[in-house]
């Protein structure tokens, strides 16, 4: 759409540009004291305060008064805005207006940069609190006009680069003025995000959890600095501390990241205002619990082009749902009392803003809330009472819309910023639409003028004949071109008429084909109202696919509840002294194993006939990387400061698939990118619950360590990070633990100390409060780590992978380390050349607590079979093999008091199998966690049917949308990458 921008600066005098103290050399000094009154308009003083037919009185760029009976002073210019509506200018809290994107730092190749580019600033280049948007700001006139025309008059702009981005600037989009009037507040807020700066290639952080850790450490460092403990100058921290009292806006970009941001804020008593992602509706209660004000983009997805059914079949249900559900996000947020502002952020064209806003309203967003989200809410975030409303004393920032802004037909006619007028359409423009009648040379004509008010169209007829004609309406003049009576001739008549106010006729002159001309009056037949279809759809007509928990295929429409269940006549693998009990009943009550025995009878229990079936405790995977948004923080050789608990993703379908394989508990381990990795999350696979609720209650603390090729970065082109050899790995551990010891000693001495999250975590290891699970392959390094641990008087809890464990099982036994290994993987890299599938059996024979793990989203759902391989290779007994995927990992994880066997009082995490669970022919029929059935073959069947139905109806809806002329997008799949040991936030694929 071409922007019409008329009469710019017509009332230039309204704006007194210069300050009193500016010298004037081009004339005399004047001062503007006149008032302006805009009358007869509907005035939205604020979203809830509306004056019908009111007057808005302004002077010197400020609102003087608004109301029904405003007394108009003598020195006042009056503007009649009859039929129009005045709104306070919209405010966009999350803008990059006039601030150019910084250039990406040059350099390429895979060799990472570990140090910063800068001197005298924080050690990490992605923390840029010293940035001020104003230093990069250049008023963008063209963009300003576009924004004004779409209702936005004030933007808070910033340099969208870095994890801490420094201050933003509040700009009034006064095209006529200069920056002295435009800048409403310099350094208005501080911006943060989870995205790195493009101005530096410094590799840390490589993950979202690293970003969170970095922010936390920054708050600690800033605090330490502010107390005068640092004798060097850090301009970043100084700026960061100076910005602390401003509003803090963090660009999270998604619901999940919003919750993460809030978690960081809570730790330091900061309430961020959070830029969301439009997916907040999926778990709105969690969003509400943040108590944050949100900034919500409304870039709703287009329907997919599903005409080609081959391509369409590749679409994921969740993407199709997104198209259907996202427009309801603002409504759902509003209904649940989440305060939010709206932003144009992420919209490709500003035109889409109104289209999408109307779509949100059609999906039930209430207009008052919508208006508040564009005016008072952002003003409140900015602590600025002079914008977003038209109360006396506020800035005269307002638009005049041709009617209700939230009507698809209305447009912004004028936009006034600090009293400076910007005109897009002539406010006095006469509506010439209607039916006219005239006689010319003995013929009676009818002229039907329809279309929009600003560019109407004409149809000219007499009796049955329609003449080709063309009408233009510009600057109060109508020009009509039409063919003569002989329609076979290409000869035109021309009619020109000046439109006078309140005229019901077109009075003008007609020029004939032969050059003659005569006066002609076309009279309006009746003042018939042009039928304006209000494009307001009834929200009830919108079919919204029900939101499930999680909001993907196989999600629950309502969270399942714990039941009292009695399994009758099962073969029960107790993992206790009782061994395998035949024909036995097990009662589950209140989420616990309540009774084991024969012929149990309990009133009210749901009976499950388990005749011929096997009941076991749930499978536990010591080494998993599913259900996490990041796995590796690879930016440094130690990342003890990060925690997988920060990035658990409850929506990963692999949780459901693991349940289908009888898995109930997993440890999500950090990857193996560095010798000291990050902290683990131990979770129960309670499919449907929120991420935080998956985390094991009173969870034991773990951290991942790693040895060998991955930490040496042997298999990719990286030669700059210490350590590059196994020799270096040892010294790195000794260094870190020596420092951690010194840190802990200092802390215990009561002296003031700088909180260092990394050292805190390693001190927990030294104090035996946190356990290590160490990725390991060859015997030399395994031996080494045990010796390092012994030197610092702690134990390695678990060696994971431990493929050469069989070579030093005796030493592991003596040290007290457990083993968590693959059943039969090997040959994928040099250090697993001597891996043998008999490993688990040998270790177990030697009395090492041995588990079999997956490290793989596919294998994890068949861990029962992997356990059976310990029977095949090395001849473990079936009971012992079964313990390798249940009780033993529970022991390794220090959760065997609650899970890992069928014992009265333990958590009711059980699986019902159709046959011996070690058999290749075994299938999990029910997987239960704490008495709640999270997987059930019968329910699964129902899901399959409903998924098909839902796909079909969504495809029909999309076809309908396309048929209606809606723009579509090609089929695509937003792939979530599988995470393995070596996975950075987007690549690498090894173990």
């Amino acid at each position, binding site marked *: 759409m071409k922007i019409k921008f008329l009469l710019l600066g017509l009332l230039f005098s309204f704006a007194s540009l210069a300050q009193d103290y500016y010298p004037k050399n081009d004339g005399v000094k004047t001062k503007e004291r006149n008032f302006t009154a805009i009358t007869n308009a509907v005035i939205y003083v604020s979203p809830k305060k509306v004056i019908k037919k009111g007057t808005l009185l302004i002077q010197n760029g400020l609102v003087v008064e608004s109301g029904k009976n405003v007394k108009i002073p003598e020195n006042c210019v009056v503007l009649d805005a009859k039929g129009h509506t005045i709104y306070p200018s919209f405010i966009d809290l999350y803008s990059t207006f006039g601030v150019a994107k910084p250039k990406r730092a040059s350099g390429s190749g895979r060799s990472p940069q570990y140090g910063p580019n800068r001197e005298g600033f924080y050690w990490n280049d992605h923390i840029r609190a010293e940035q001020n948007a104003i230093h990069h700001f250049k008023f963008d006139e063209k963009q300003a006009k576009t924004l004004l025309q779409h209702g936005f008059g004030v933007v808070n702009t910033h340099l969208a680069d870095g994890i801490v981005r420094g201050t933003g600037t509040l700009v009034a989009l006064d095209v006529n003025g200069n920056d002295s009037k435009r800048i409403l507040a310099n350094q208005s807020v501080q911006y943060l995000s989870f995205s790195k700066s493009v101005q530096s290639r410094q590799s840390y952080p490589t993950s979202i959890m690293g970003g969170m850790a970095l922010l936390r450490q920054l708050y600690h460092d800033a605090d330490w600095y502010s107390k005068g403990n640092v004798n060097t100058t850090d301009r970043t921290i100084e700026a960061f501390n100076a910005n602390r009292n401003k509003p803090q806006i963090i660009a999270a970009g998604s619901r999940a990241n919003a919750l993460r941001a809030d978690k960081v804020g809570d730790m330091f008593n900061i309430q961020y205002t959070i830029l969301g992602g439009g997916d907040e509706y999926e778990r709105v209660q969690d969003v509400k619990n943040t108590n944050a004000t949100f900034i919500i983009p409304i870039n709703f997805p287009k329907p997919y082009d599903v005409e080609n059914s*081959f391509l369409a*079949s*590749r679409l*994921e*249900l*969740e993407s199709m749902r997104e198209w259907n559900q996202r427009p309801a996000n603002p409504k759902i947020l509003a209904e649940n009392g989440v305060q939010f502002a709206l932003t144009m952020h992420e919209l490709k064209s500003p035109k889409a803003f109104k289209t999408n806003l109307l779509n949100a309203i059609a999906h039930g967003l209430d207009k008052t809330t919508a208006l508040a989200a564009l005016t008072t809410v952002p003003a409140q975030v900015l602590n600025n009472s002079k914008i977003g409303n038209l109360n006396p004393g506020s800035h005269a920032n307002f638009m005049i819309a041709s009617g209700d802004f939230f009507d698809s037909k209305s447009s912004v006619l004028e936009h006034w910023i600090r009293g400076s007028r910007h005109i897009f359409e002539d406010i006095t423009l006469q509506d010439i639409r209607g039916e006219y009648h005239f006689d010319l040379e003995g013929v009676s004509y009818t002229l039907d003028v329809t279309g929009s008010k600003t560019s109407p169209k004409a149809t000219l007829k007499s009796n049955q004949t329609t003449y080709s004609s063309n009408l233009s309406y510009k600057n109060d003049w109508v020009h009509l071109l039409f063919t003569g009576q002989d329609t076979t001739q290409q000869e035109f008549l021309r009619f020109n008429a000046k439109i006078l106010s309140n005229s019901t006729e077109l009075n003008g002159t007609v020029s004939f084909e032969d050059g003659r001309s005569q006066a002609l009056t076309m009279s309006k037949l009746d003042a018939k109202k042009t039928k304006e279809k209000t494009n307001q759809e009834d929200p009830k007509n919108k079919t919204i696919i029900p939101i499930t928990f999680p909001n*993907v*295929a196989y999600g629950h429409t309502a969270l399942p509840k714990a039941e009292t269940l009695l399994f009758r006549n099962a073969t029960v693998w107790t993992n206790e002294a009782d061994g395998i009990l035949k024909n036995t009943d097990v009662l589950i009550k209140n989420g616990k194993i309540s009774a084991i025995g024969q012929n149990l009878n309990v009133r009210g229990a749901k009976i499950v006939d388990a005749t011929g079936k096997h009941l076991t405790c749930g499978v536990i995977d010591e080494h998993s990387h599913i259900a996490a948004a990041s796995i590796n923080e690879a930016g440094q050789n130690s990342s003890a400061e990060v925690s997988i608990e920060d990035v658990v993703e409850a929506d990963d*379908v*692999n949780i*459901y*698939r693991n349940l*289908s394989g009888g898995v109930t508990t997993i440890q999500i381990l950090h990857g193996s990118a560095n010798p000291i990795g990050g902290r683990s999350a131990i979770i129960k696979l309670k499919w449907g619950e929120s991420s935080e609720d998956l985390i094991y209650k009173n969870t034991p603390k773990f951290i991942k360590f790693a040895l060998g*090729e991955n930490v040496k970065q*042997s298999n990719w082109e990286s030669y700059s990070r210490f350590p590059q050899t196994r020799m270096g790995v040892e010294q790195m551990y000794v260094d870190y633990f020596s420092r951690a010891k010194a840190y802990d000693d200092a802390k215990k001495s009561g002296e003031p100390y700088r909180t260092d999250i990394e050292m805190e975590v390693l001190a927990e290891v030294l104090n035996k409060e946190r356990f290590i699970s160490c990725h390991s392959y060859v015997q030399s390094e395994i031996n080494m780590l045990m010796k390092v641990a012994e030197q610092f008087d702690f134990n390695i809890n678990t060696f994971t992978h431990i493929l050469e464990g*069989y*070579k030093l*099982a*005796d030493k592991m036994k003596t040290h007290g380390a457990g083993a968590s290994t693959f059943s*039969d*993987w*090997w*040959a*994928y*890299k*040099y250090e697993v*050349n*001597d891996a*043998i599938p*008999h490993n688990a059996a*040998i270790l177990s*024979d030697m009395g090492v607590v041995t588990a079999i793990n997956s490290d793989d989203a*596919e*294998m994890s759902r068949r861990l029962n*079979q992997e356990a*059976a*391989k310990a*029977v*095949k290779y*090395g001849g473990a007994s*079936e009971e012992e093999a079964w313990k390798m995927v249940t009780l033993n990992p529970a022991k390794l994880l220090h959760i065997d008091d609650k899970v890992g066997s069928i014992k009265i009082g333990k958590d009711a995490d059980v699986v019902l199998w159709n046959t*011996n669970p*070690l058999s*290749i*022919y*075994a*299938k999990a029929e029910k997987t239960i966690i704490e008495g709640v059935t999270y997987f059930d073959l019968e329910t699964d069947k129902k899901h*399959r049917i409903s*998924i098909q139905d839902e*796909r079909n109806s969504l495809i029909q809806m999309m076809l309908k949308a396309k048929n209606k002329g809606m723009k579509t997008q*090609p*089929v*695509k*799949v*937003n*792939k979530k*990458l599988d995470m393995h040991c070596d996975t950075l936030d*987007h*690549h690498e694929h*090894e173990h």
Partner: protein
Amino acid sequence: MKFYIKFLTLFTLILSVHAQQTPAPSQQQAIAITGATAHLGTGEVIENSLIIFNNGLLEYVGQLDSTRINSDMEVIDAQNQHVYPGFIIPNSTLGLIEIDAVRASDDDAEIGTWNPHIRSLIAYNTESKVVETMRPNGVLLAQITPRGGRISGKSSVVQLDAWNWEDATIKTDEGIHMNWPSNFSYGRWWLGESPGLKVNDKYNDQVSEVETYFSNAKAHLATKSKGTHLPYEAMTGLFDGTTKLYIHVDDEKGIVDAVTAAQNHNISDIVLVGAYEAYKVASFLKTNKIPVLLRRVHSRPNKSDEDYDLPFKLAKMLVDAGVVVALEASGDMERMNSRNLPFYAGTTVAFGLTKAQALKLITLNPAKILGIDDQYGSLESGKSATLFISSGDALDMRTNQLTRAFIDGRDISLESHQTKLWKRYSNKYKTQE
């Protein structure tokens, strides 16, 4: 760095030579296996059976009949045990790569797009430590297949107990492998694209490139006065029906396009490889008699909303529809995982097939598809004595426990680098006690 690579290669080589089991000599004496449950691979099972083989060939497979046993025979009492034909792993890179991460040991994919002349057989390393770990699980034959390019090259069928690739050969250059263009392509995240799948807008162009290539090959082969053109000439067998065309393709539309295109070029012997969505066009495949080497059973569904067990039950769906199916194992960690082939078949039983049907997927069906069923793939009189004895059900890891195995009647070793280490370290601890 160069030094390290050389060093590593040398070291690996030494280890491999050291570890390799010596191939068994040819059969010297007739062998009778008595009393076992014989799983013929044809769908038939004989309880209390007698199997006699001599000079590498099966002479008798039937009910136990002691009159057929004579004193010249070695008699193996296999009561309560099970006998199976040697399992066959098609579409395999065994012996082409030793250690994934060690580039020097990788020989599976040549550069270039059109490689019909590339032959996997000559790179097949019979001394591979990975190969010898197949045998203890019953995997005795493999189709060694090159990767990469649009046309990857030629595969050959080998047996897994040999001195060199010539010894190993069962069928040379029996098929040409083509990777059909995908209807989808992955976003190049390193260029800032979203890493997901999007419609491949070059699909039609890529298909017409394939068509053009085949037309050109045909045109070249039709002239008598042709100059040398190695790739085109390597395709001769495709057009006269002596070489099979293996088309690696997964999606429904691609399958139909690929089969139709090949047929338009008068290629009669077509096999699909991977074929994830073959179940959607099963009747088309049945009608056109197109067999399928089905992708690894132990994998996850491609889409999050698909049935969790879709990869487990694909075989059942195709078999029920009358398609000839064999199982393959390509993908991540494919070589070391190939020894799990029997358990892939076992999983198809948990998800619908009978055990006899499942067994066929790794015996007679792959033999038929690879064109070696006159000799291999089932226990039938006259065929090669390539078989093994397991103390239990070989499709289940709980019970897959080989006691003896034979390739062409040769009594092969079930030891490996891995069993040696197992024994060595078990003994280490025993002597400590």
